[in-house]
Structure formats: structure tokens, C-alpha cells
């Protein structure tokens, strides 16, 4: 019912980048993620779909331990990236997050200039030797975020003074500026017009050449367009996880089918 992913984007069998086993997440008493096991492949775009509130964001935030910042949130189970348990005591969440970048669902630019918003990551990771290099990184990131033209004249204006969609693209640009190996994107195009969406999708496709990308989206078309693998979440369960083409053409689970045909929400 949706365009099957074009052959060029066919899922290539690659290494497993992230392996999650029996993940459970609780917000206080609320059991938000129930027993989810999933293997996310490298150099692949994985889409998480599912009705609002089913736990997509929650699971995504487990993958770079962003849930650590929520007091009431407890995560059980095992998540490995490149074979290393990220919830291991010895793991440094900072290094983890440098490796696993994130675009949040609600755009959250820093109360700084647009330039500093982008330059922040590269600076802390020491990615630029000098101002010129940094300028270059910033420009490249903003271009990749499809926002360069709109902000190039006001790089010193505060990032908080941008429109909703501009903020969203700024946050995407901010995340790619640090060149993470895995990029988690929580509804990155929700506030974008079709053109901007297309540009971001192009970016995702480009990133896929080297990295693993996980994208949460409510747009079935988008999932079908950009992803090779799709995971369908429902009420905290991972209902089905398979090649995108398979999910959208021939889902195994009836719930998946109902969802993509628009019958359950």
C-alpha cells in the first residue's frame, strides 16, 4: 500500500551495531517498554513506528542512556553496542553519547547563537584545530541540516529565535556536526515542509553510507522511503521487526497490519 523501498535502498546484510535483549523500562510504576529485543544493523536506517505513546521515544532514549537523566526511569535488560554492554558500570555515558548522537522529539536549541549551537559539539570533542576549521564544520553541518540558506546571514542570532521547523533542522545539524557513529532521530521531520523533509531524508540516506541511523516517525511514507528495517511498537511491546519492504507489504502480525492500514492507533 506504500511504495516499496526502491532496490537501491534494499537492506544490505551488515553487522549488528546495536543488540538489545529483553529491555524493560519503567517510569515509576508505569511499565513503558516490555521485553523488547532488537538487533539494529550498521549502515542501515531503522525506522521505529507505532502509535503515539507506545514507547518509541523511550526505547530510543535507552540506546544512548538519555533516560539516565530522568529520575523515575529505570531500565532493565541488556543493550550492547558493538558488543559492549552500554549499561555496564565501566561504560562512560559521555563517550557513549558522543558515539550515539540524538535528535530530540522537541527541538531544544541552546540559548546561544546559531553558530554556537552547532559549534558546541565539535568544540567539546576537539574536532577543530582552529576557527577556520570550526567555521567550516559549522557551515557543513548547517548545510546538511538544510538550513544554511536561511540562517547564513544571522549566525549570531539566538537559536531560540528561530521558527519551529528551523529549530528542528538546527538540532539535526547540531547532532550531525559531531559525526556520531549511530544517529538516533526522534521524529526529525515533524515540523518540516515537504522540501525540507526531502532534504533531511537525503541527509539520512547519506549518513547511512557510514553509520547506523534510527529514526522514529509517524509517517508511514517516510518510514518506507528512508528505512531498510522497520520496527513496529505497540503498547510497549515490539510487535514486529523486519525488512521495511516486508513490514509494509506483508506484515506477519495482525496488529502491524491494522496499524499500517490505519485501523489501530
Amino acid at each position: 500500500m506504500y511504495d516499496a523501498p526502491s532496490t537501491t535502498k534494499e537492506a544490505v546484510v551488515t553487522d549488528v551495531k546495536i543488540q538489545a535483549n529483553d529491555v524493560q523500562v519503567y517510569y515509576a510504576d508505569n511499565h513503558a517498554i516490555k521485553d523488547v529485543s532488537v538487533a539494529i544493523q550498521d549502515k542501515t536506517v531503522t525506522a521505529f513506528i507505532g502509535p503515539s505513546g507506545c514507547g518509541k521515544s523511550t526505547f530510543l532514549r535507552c540506546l544512548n542512556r538519555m533516560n539516565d537523566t530522568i529520575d523515575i526511569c529505570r531500565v532493565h535488560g541488556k543493550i550492547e553496542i558493538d558488543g559492549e554492554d552500554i549499561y555496564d558500570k565501566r561504560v562512560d555515558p559521555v563517550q557513549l553519547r558522543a558515539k550515539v548522537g540524538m535528535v530530540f522529539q522537541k527541538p531544544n536549541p541552546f540559548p546561544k547563537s546559531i553558530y554556537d549551537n552547532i559549534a558546541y559539539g565539535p568544540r567539546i570533542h576537539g574536532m577543530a584545530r582552529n576557527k577556520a576549521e570550526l567555521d567550516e564544520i559549522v557551515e557543513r553541518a548547517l548545510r546538511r541540516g538544510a538550513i544554511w540558506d536561511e540562517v547564513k546571514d544571522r549566525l549570531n542570532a539566538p537559536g531560540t529565535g528561530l521558527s519551529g521547523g528551523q529549530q528542528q533542522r538546527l538540532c539535526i545539524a547540531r547532532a550531525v556536526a559531531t559525526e556520531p557513529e549511530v544517529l538516533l532521530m526522534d521524529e526529525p521531520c515533524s515540523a518540516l515542509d515537504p522540501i525540507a523533509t526531502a532534504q533531511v531524508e537525503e541527509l539520512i540516506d547519506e549518513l547511512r553510507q557510514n553509520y547506523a541511523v534510527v529514526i522514529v516517525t509517524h509517517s508511514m511514507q517516510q518510514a518506507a522511503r528512508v528505512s531498510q528495517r522497520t520496527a513496529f511498537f505497540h503498547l510497549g511491546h515490539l510487535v514486529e521487526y523486519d525488512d521495511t519492504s516486508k513490514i509494509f507489504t506483508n506484515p506477519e502480525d495482525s496488529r502491524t497490519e491494522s496499524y499500517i492500514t490505519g485501523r489501530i492507533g
Partner: protein
Amino acid sequence: MPLFWLFLIVLAIAAGAYLLARSRVLSMAGDDRRALHSLPSYYGSNAAMKSAVPALLLLVAWLLAQPFIVDNAVSSLIPDAAIADNSSRALVMAEVRRTADGLDMAVASGGLTEALARSEGLDLDVATSSLQEAGAIVTSQLTEPVLAAAQQFRALNTIGARWMSVAVIIVALIGATWGIREASPAFRARNTVERGVRALLIAAASIAILTTLGIVLSLVFNTIEFFRLYPASEFFFGLSWAPSFSGRGGASDLGILPLLWGTFYISIVALLVAVPVGLFAAIYLSEYASPKVRAIAKPLLEVLAGIPTIVYGLFALLTVGPLLVRVFGDDGLGWMQAGTAVMTAGLVMGIMLIPFVSSLSDDIINAVPQAMRDGSYGLGATQSETIRQVVLPAALPGIVGAILLAASRAIGETMIVVLGAGAAARLSLNPFEAMTTVTAKIVSQLTGDADFASPEALVAFALGMTLFVITLGLNIFALYIVRKYREQYE
């Protein structure tokens, strides 16, 4: 009618107006609240406000004015002859008032009947003795004019009080009627009430201006007087502060510069202690500490702000000073002569100021939205990077406010300076030398023994004024800086 009762009656009228206006507007709207412009309670509040506020204002105005009017009326009754030549009309009036009070007490205790207390035929001796019996403190035998005036005084006050009650109640009733009649669904009750509240807010904000005005007025005349006696140029540019005792006359050096330097130097040392410690404490409390640690440590640190400064002064004098001497004194590095020094006072003052920086900053840092932190963590920033580069800039206005508060407190502190830094005014760069501050000298010149009309005493006012102007300048500068670097989240 006792004031308290009058007050209660006004409140009762207001409460009645509230209920009436509310029910009236509800019934007009046919119980459909949506048809009303505002919530029913606003109509009530409007009526209550209109009945209580003017009435109470009138009450206050009357209470302020009546004594003046009655005093004037009564005092014109006292013949000049009744005023002893070393006394004044005001003092006789004081006695009249006391006698009138005494009559009240005598009537209350039954020693006199009300009628007798009023009657012209009241015998002086009877009056005196019954007053004394009633426990009124009268020093000597009453005199005829005083007693007559006191009786008049009581009479006028009784009349005044009666008319006041009437007037206040009438005003309250008029206001109530007005408010109730206004109550119709289309009436913008909320706006009216909010205008009232806003007036209140403005009044509150204006108190700052009034206080400033008051300070300037209470300093300025004596300051001018000082400059009449002492050349301004020497005061502002003189390099030495050496007030002599006015008995010696005219030999004082009253240059403010050494004091300003001391103020500046000691405050800087204090802030160098308080700001890093306070800020780091705030950061630790709000970002790292567990809620339990925070719940205990923060209030404990706040106790530091509540220890009387004299304790800090003694602490500086008895503990910190000798300690520093041991390290920096002749036996140690040899920089320090005695325990009292800029360093001693600065360190101790810094300790006192820690909570000013820590507590307030902690609250502000805590108020920075979590999304800011998440954004930074998501980029792989460490917690300290996040704090330094995202959280602190976002919290900057509040933190600057806290630091300014601490700085202000440092400038205004006396006791620690007196005990910790010594009383010597000196222009020196060595922080291990004794110095003193403008504030300490304001206190000592103000509470000293010098002839109060002499420049040595009046200089306290000039010092206060100058300090006031200087800090004003600094604050304008700080405001400008904060405006320039403010970062607003969202």
C-alpha cells in the same frame, strides 16, 4: 466606637458587598456563568474592593489628620501664660494628652464618672488624686489650663471619633452600592480588580524609589553641612584618612580614597572566596548531589548567612587572624605584621557570603529546563561541560544577581571589617596589611565621641552619600552588562 470594631464593620460591609454583587450578577446572567464577562468572584471582589479601599483610606487619613486638628484646636486654647518659659507649647500639649489619657483611665476604673470627667467644675485636687489612683502617671499637680485643655481634648476627640465612624461607614456603604450596581454581566469586573491589584504592585515597586529618596534626604543636608566645613577636593582626592579629635580642631585629614580602596580590596577578597565556593557549591547541590544531600546541605549553608556578624568578627580576630599570621607572619613568609588584615576580613566575609551565592544560584540553576541539559548530553558532553557551557549561561542573569547581592553585602559589612581588618585607613597593595572600609568608618564616626557638629562626625554622612553614588554607578554598569550578555532560553 473602638477602631477595631470600625475596622471589622468595614470588612463586614465589604464581605456583604462581595456576596451581594456575586449573587446579583449570577442571577442577572440566569446562572449561566459563560454569559458573564468575568468569574463571579471578580464581581464580588470588585464590590468588596470599592467598599473597603476608599473607606479604609479615609480611616487612615482621618486618623492621621485628627490629632493634628485636635492638637491645633486645643493648643490654641492654652494661654501663653500657662507655658513656662523654658518649656514649649508642644511639651504642654504632651501633658494635656497625658492628662486626657489619665481621665480616660480614671473613668474606666470607676474613679470618676464620665459626667464628672467632662464637667467644668471638676476640682483640680480631685482630678489629680483620682488620676493617680487610676494608675495614670502624672508627675505633679495638675494646673487649671491643662485640665481644661485636657477636657476639651477629650471632647473633641470623642466628636472626631464619632464623625469618623459615621463617615467611614457611609463611604463603605456608598462604595458597596456602587460595586453592587456595577455588577452586570457585561461589566469588566476582572479588569477592574486587576487594575486595583496592579496599582498595588506599582505601589510596592515604588517603595524602592521612596526609600532611595528617603536615604538621600536623610543624608544630603548633613553632607552639605560637611562640605561647608571641609573642602570637597580634599575629601575626594585626599590620600590620607586621619581624623583627629575635634578638641584639637582643624587638623583632620578626611580623604575618602584610602577608605574606598579598602572597601574595594576587602570586597574583592571576599568575593574571591565567596563566588567560587558559592558557585561550585550551588552547582554541586543542583546538579550532582542527591536530593537528600541537597535537602540537608543547602539549609545548612544558609545558616552561615544568619550567624550574627559579630561572631564572624570575633572568628576573624581570634581564629583566622592568628592562623594567617602563623603562615604569613614573621615566623612564616614574613608578609604579615599582625592578625588584622585585608586578608583576614576578606576571607571571613567570604565565608559569610557563601550562601548568598550558593542558595540563590542553586535555585536558578535548578530552574533551567531539563531539555537544555538533555540537548547537551545528547551531543556527548560531560556533565561539567554541560554545566559550564549550557546551564550556567542560561542561568547567568540570576547568578549575576546573586553575586551582586553578595558584593553589595560585602560593601555594607561593618563588624567583620572592624574586628578583622583593623581600623587603619591605608593605601597599600599588600593584602596582609590592615585596612578599613567606608562603611566601617561611617559607623565609627557616627557612633564616636567627636562633636556632632564637627566635620569629623559629619563626614559619616558624606561617606554614606559618596558610597551611595558610587554603588549606584556600579549598578548601572552591572545592569548594562547583564542586558548585554543575557541569554534567554526557549
